[in-house]
């Protein structure tokens, strides 16, 4: 072997070894920012499960930092900046309210990949992800229409953001498909965090005859507790809460970000991350409906599963025309479906909801 070749080989080997030790010594930092504390269940918990999925898949190659319970105000920007300063290469922003500060930071750091929950602005290194929870709630609505005996469905909702409004509409459409006479009643809490009030709202709805409740965007099992105590059914958001209401949980609409997070992080590692708008529903598995109650008959469950398969395959659509709002205006003509843009900006209620939007 000629000396030069040997030197080259040695150098190449050394370089490879150096790179290897470097990557071993310095795992890629990923940072996750949540608006609420990570509890046993809830929105932040589901995001955190996604983080754990990344850790499990990439092992020592990643090191993750979690900051929880950060309100959507001026402090969030500082925390994000801190994450970037500390060397994060992949940043997950878990609340809509982090959008503008996140975008600003993404513009300053084109080499860092950002993914942002529920937002609507994307750049090359700033992607957004949203759950098509309305698909899951449509299935929950079908089940609700099947089991209700009082023909009254009650919805406890935090704030009238488009995502929640779309869920309310999906529930209404589904319930009316099964039980056209059912009444849909709704209480807006106008509070992010007030479990006692959520429970009082749940009881108010029960007193108005509701025997199936929907708990929209409550992080705690507050409404589930009431449903269990009062003997009514409940469909909840984010996590499987059947442990809190073994008899009462009719179904849980669950967010599963694992695949999306892993794919996004892989893309960031490979250097081909592209800020896109990911809207995951039943088809992608980002929305799952689980914990179906045993009270549902085989036949009912069969109908629901069929609807699930049809929604997932794209054969049917939750917001298919003809679709009218509360005031009787046609929102989608027969034979058309509502475009995504309108679903994710929904500020009107479909025909048949009793109650109004708080604006």
């Amino acid at each position: 072997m000629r000396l030069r070749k040997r030197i080259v080989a040695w150098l190449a080997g050394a370089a490879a070894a150096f790179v290897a030790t470097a990557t071993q010594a310095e795992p890629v930092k990923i940072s996750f920012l949540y608006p609420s504390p990570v509890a046993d269940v809830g929105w932040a918990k589901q995001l955190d499960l996604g983080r754990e999925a990344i850790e499990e898949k990439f092992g020592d190659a990643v090191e993750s930092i979690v900051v929880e319970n950060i309100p959507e105000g001026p402090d969030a920007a500082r925390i994000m900046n801190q994450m970037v300063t500390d060397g994060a290469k992949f940043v997950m922003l878990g609340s809509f309210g982090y959008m503008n500060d996140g975008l600003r930071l993404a513009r300053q750091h084109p080499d860092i990949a950002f993914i942002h929950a529920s937002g609507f602005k994307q750049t090359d290194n700033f992607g957004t992800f949203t759950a098509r929870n309305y698909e899951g709630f449509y299935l929950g609505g079908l089940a609700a229409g099947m089991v209700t005996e009082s023909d009254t469905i009650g919805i406890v909702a935090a704030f009238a953001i488009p995502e929640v409004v779309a869920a309310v509409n999906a529930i209404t459409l589904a319930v009316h498909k099964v039980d056209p006479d059912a009444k849909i009643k709704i209480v807006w809490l106008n509070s992010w965090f007030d479990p006692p009030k959520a429970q009082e709202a749940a009881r108010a709805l029960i007193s108005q005859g509701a025997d199936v409740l929907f708990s929209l965007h409550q992080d705690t099992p507050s409404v589930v507790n009431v449903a269990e105590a009062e003997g009514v059914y409940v469909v909840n958001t984010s996590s499987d809460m059947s442990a809190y209401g073994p008899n009462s949980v009719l179904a849980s609409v669950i967010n599963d970000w694992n695949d999306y997070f892993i794919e996004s992080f892989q893309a960031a590692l490979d250097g081909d991350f592209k800020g896109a708008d990911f809207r995951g529903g039943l088809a992608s598995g980002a929305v799952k409906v689980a914990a179906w109650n045993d009270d549902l008959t085989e036949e009912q469950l069969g109908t629901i599963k069929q609807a699930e398969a049809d929604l997932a395959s794209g054969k049917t659509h939750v917001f298919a025309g003809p679709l009218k709002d509360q005031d009787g205006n046609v929102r989608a003509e027969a034979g058309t479906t509502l475009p995504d843009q309108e679903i994710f900006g929904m500020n009107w209620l479909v025909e048949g909801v009793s109650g109004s939007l708080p604006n």
Partner: protein
Amino acid sequence: MQTITFVLAGTMLAATPLLIAALGELIAEKSGILNLSVEGMMALGAAIGFIVVMETGSYWLAFLAGGLVSTLLAALFGAVVLLALGNQVATGLAVGILGVGLAALIGKPYESKTVPPMPRMPIPFLSDIPVIGPGLFNHVVLVYLAPLAALGLWWLFRYSKLGLIIRAVGESPEASHAIGHNVMLVRLLAVLAGGFLAGVAGAFISVASTTLWSDGMIAGRGWIVVALVVFGTWRVGRVMIGAYLFGIASIAELLVQSTGIGVPSQLLTSIPYVATIVAIALLSMDGRRIRLNAPVSLGRVYREAQ
């Protein structure tokens, strides 16, 4: 569940913690001490009470522990206000913030866990009355104890020597001192009693009402308690009526929404606060009435004659 039953039951459940804590605040204020840290004491009581049920399964122990830990916080408040002659408004805010923070810190591992609901104690015969029975007479025992406690407190202030001493100390600490009462001790005990009741009220919310703990769940109820005492012009009966009225108001908001009447919900959410302001303004309008009932030395720093 019928509407009337719900309104009654919901009112009892919403009003009970307010009433318990308001009675405590009333004792403190009658002795001349304005305690603005109720929110923090309730939060701490809620966290501790919940943890105790979680770990031991005993609800009574939970109320006791929640009450006692809040009493410790009240002791801190009392020490600063009475011994260090601190400004009561500032000290109340400070201790309140401390309580909210400690509750969040201690309760962190228990975030969003739940405990089984406390067993109810239906009152025989009464709970069988249609509509009213399940609304008023099928609750956890504290719901019945709270009005009884109010009755006891009314008797205490009206007929007992201790009540007389507390009132005297609140009216004129200097005169009370001159006739040989231990002003400091009376005030300290009043503050501790207030803290204990605030803690019990907090524990009621977490273990008997919501059956879960979460940071921020007291959500301003401690401030409502302070308002209730003014609203009730320092009279036990009126404070109690105020607590139940407030309970009804908060239930009515949700009921109106659930019947689908098209009023902006933020407006409805604001109603209890607006109502409180209006009530306070109306009640205070007649200055004499306030002066007649308000403990004269309320909020003033008292320094014992040397």
